[in-house]
């Protein structure tokens, strides 16, 4: 299981703040997890498609597409940050 969180506009567009999913076989990086979610189609494809500005954190650290993901991780998807 990985815990996935969504924030800000992504949370609104997807209609949820988070979920827990079983990592499918072969999904072991941020890029692969994102592609897996895009494959759901609909709002998921629209919000997370390649080219959309989406930032990802794995276990509270900013991550890259190549950052590895393993069961037990917390993975957050969110728009570019706008604090300050």
């Amino acid at each position, binding site marked *: 299981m990985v815990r996935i*969180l969504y*924030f*800000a*506009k992504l949370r609104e567009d997807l209609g949820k703040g988070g979920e827990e999913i079983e990592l499918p076989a072969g999904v072991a990086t941020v890029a692969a997890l994102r592609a897996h979610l895009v494959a759901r189609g609909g709002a998921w494809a629209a919000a997370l498609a390649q080219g959309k*500005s989406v*930032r990802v*954190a794995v276990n*509270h*650290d*900013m991550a890259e597409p190549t950052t590895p993901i393993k069961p037990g991780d*917390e993975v*957050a998807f*969110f*728009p*570019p*940050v*706008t*604090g*300050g």
Partner: protein
Amino acid sequence: MPTIRVQTEDFDAGAETARLRAGDPKVGAVASFVGVCRDVNEGDAVTTMTLEHYPGMTEKALAKIVDEAMARWRVVDVTVIHRVGELRPADQIVLVAVAGAHRGEAFAACEFIMDYLKTRAPFWKKEQTPQGARWVDARAGDDEAAARWGADEKNAA
């Protein structure tokens, strides 16, 4: 020992800055910054603003930014306070205060922390305007500001 707080309540910038330097007579310079909620953004009136964050990650991200600043410059102590929740125009949003022996390093560390906070700390602003609510877009200018310090990741792009 840096102070890092994420809170809904307002803060007293003068008291925080005084506390930051109290007790260390080696401090000769305190550089500080207060970010304030403006009543207009991109030409539209802003009536209220809601700041969302990522509890759990936020403090950790801020601590990492402060640690990096304290590794780059010789400073004595740092305070970062960032508010979340609903704010109105003229409300304070963020305080970054840096105490050090000399002003050049205090200024640099303070501006570095603000630039990194704007591009790496998980906060998101939603504005209420007469035209409705909207999420604030990240600014390329903030990436450029962070890039001056050697940051290569982009936030806004």
